[in-house]
């Protein structure tokens, strides 16, 4: 996907996680410049390794003031914002009976409102550029029900709703908003969420017979962010090896 993001300034949240780190590297390979954000500063070494094309900002997606700082940093260092990849999320196992409302609210605060905060923060910058692309990373938990994933799953369904509504509302601004629905990916967050089942069991459920490598998900986000997807908005792109066919 060489050159797919040439000249684009990309913000990726959750950039210290397994998925975010790989996405960061592929975005730069695709020609983009990059602002990596995470509340965990573990991704800063990736930004340093990438060099001039990347910047790491310590940032919690639930902190609206910090969002303004992220956009200001992108504008100051790279001249604007073209792409936002809402990748940060929390996952965990919960049951209906054992779910305190505060815990469900926490899932929404990070996985849904965190994405909304980002969209609100980048919108003026994208309007200045005359266009933009937002990619929200959900999960096949936004398509299907799984016992024990009520909190994570409900928040990811909501992220799907946010995506479609944002696509509709922001179309006049030439801002495209799309959703990626990854299935089982070989990253720590998903491994932990699927822990009771185990990787072998999960792979056996997937028609393609394996779990995904994180770069396979990152490539989808890059396509949706690129001009190759210039007529794609409000769309969902499933990457689950056929699990939810």
């Amino acid at each position, binding site marked *: *996907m060489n050159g797919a993001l040439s000249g684009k300034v990309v913000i990726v949240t959750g950039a210290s996680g397994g998925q975010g780190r790989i996405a960061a590297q592929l975005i730069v390979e695709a020609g983009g410049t990059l602002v990596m954000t995470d509340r965990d500063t573990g991704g800063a070494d990736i930004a340093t390794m990438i060099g001039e094309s990347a910047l790491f900002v310590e940032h919690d997606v639930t902190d609206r003031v910090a969002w303004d700082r992220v956009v200001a940093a992108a504008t100051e260092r790279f001249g604007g914002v073209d792409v936002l990849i809402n990748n940060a999320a929390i996952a965990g196992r919960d049951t209906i009976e054992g779910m305190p409302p505060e815990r469900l609210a926490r899932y929404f605060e990070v996985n849904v409102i965190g994405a909304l905060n980002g969209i609100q923060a980048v919108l003026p910058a994208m309007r200045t550029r005359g*266009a933009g692309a937002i990619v929200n990373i959900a999960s096949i938990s936004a398509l299907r029900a799984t016992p024990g994933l009520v909190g994570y799953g409900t928040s990811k369904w909501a992220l799907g709703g946010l995506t*479609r509504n944002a*696509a*509709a*509302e922001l*179309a*006049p601004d*030439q801002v495209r908003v799309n959703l990626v629905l*990854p*299935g089982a990916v070989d990253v720590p967050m998903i491994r932990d969420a699927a822990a009771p089942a185990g990787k072998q069991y999960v792979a056996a459920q997937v*028609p*393609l*017979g394996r779990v*995904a490598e994180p770069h*396979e*998900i990152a*490539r*989808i986000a890059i*396509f949706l962010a690129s*001009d*190759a*997807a*210039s*007529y*794609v*908005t*409000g*769309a969902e*792109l*499933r*990457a*689950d*090896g*056929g699990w939810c*066919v």
Partner: protein
Amino acid sequence: MTPIGALSIDEYAALMDVNARGTSLAMKHEIPAMRARGGGAICNCASAAGLIPSALQVAYAGAKFAVVGLTRGAALEVAKYNIRVNVVCPARRPARCGWTLPLRIPTARRLRSPSTRSAELARRREVADAVLFLCRDATFTTGHAFPVDGGRTAG
């Protein structure tokens, strides 16, 4: 545009033949050849009309729904041979539920080519880009109906 009461069996048969039977026959012959290579990727072509209902194009939409169904079923069946099967669902008309899609001149490509013919070529290029992406880059995506429709099916 044909009201269902005026739909001739010939028109119905032609739409089903090319879209459903054609796609079915193509996969029937592609899949054994791909199995012999140890894997492959198929991208069928449906339409946004294969995802949402369409008045006055009932047979066309029915045929495109069939293409989506054939794609998803085939994807399940041949995943074990490392063959992915997806379908692209383009649309040129804007959204149905009030939000108008204004991707008037969405890309530099179009800015450079403002004539109607060039805009049509740009639109085809956008569909072609999606086909290429599904075949080459979307290595964990199968059985997926991917809209390239400016948001038409999302409203």
